């Protein structure tokens, strides 16, 4: 049996995660506005780190919420 190699579907698409692209980043936050963990999104460590900083930058600019009640 050939086992499919696990891969990060986010890195295969792009390298730079733009903090201005709210629609893209909103995939990685939960309804309450929290960042979704890596074990659920399936992102590799470098990707998750980039997504993380992008979300935090967007939050500072009030593009994304810190909390959604």
């Amino acid at each position, binding site marked *: 049996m050939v086992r499919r190699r696990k891969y990060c579907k986010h890195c295969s698409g792009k*390298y*730079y995660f733009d903090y201005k692209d709210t629609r893209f980043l909103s995939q990685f936050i939960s309804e309450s506005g929290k960042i979704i963990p890596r074990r659920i999104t399936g992102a590799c460590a470098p990707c998750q780190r980039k997504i993380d900083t992008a979300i935090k930058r967007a939050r*500072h*600019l*009030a593009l*994304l*919420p810190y909390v959604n009640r």
Partner: protein
Amino acid sequence: MRRYEVVFVLAPSLTEEEVEQMIETFTSVAKEKGAEIIEIDRWGKRRLAFPVKKHNEGYYMVLTLEESSGEAVFELERRFKVIDSVIRFLSVRIDQDLKRAEKFETKREARQKRRSRQRAKEKQEAVAEQE
């Protein structure tokens, strides 16, 4: 040259003219400090994700500039802090990321090319075997 992206949010209480004036002053400040303005992206009025300084909306501006030292960005940030109608700002250096992204792109293309070539070769071999 370093490329920076400076995003700033202006209070919604300003008129369009005042906003333009602000942009004008900021660009001239940047130019004075030896930066080259590459792009000014006006997003216009946009709803904020949460109230900032009792404002629910803001004018978003993205200023892309290129300079060698970082002085222009420093001066801009100093001014942003002083002016009350700037409600949020963020400056990010992007040249390194852009370069890395480009490198990554070319690598990926090369990989894809190699793969498709290999696939074609395999197909040929399969055909030859059948015959």
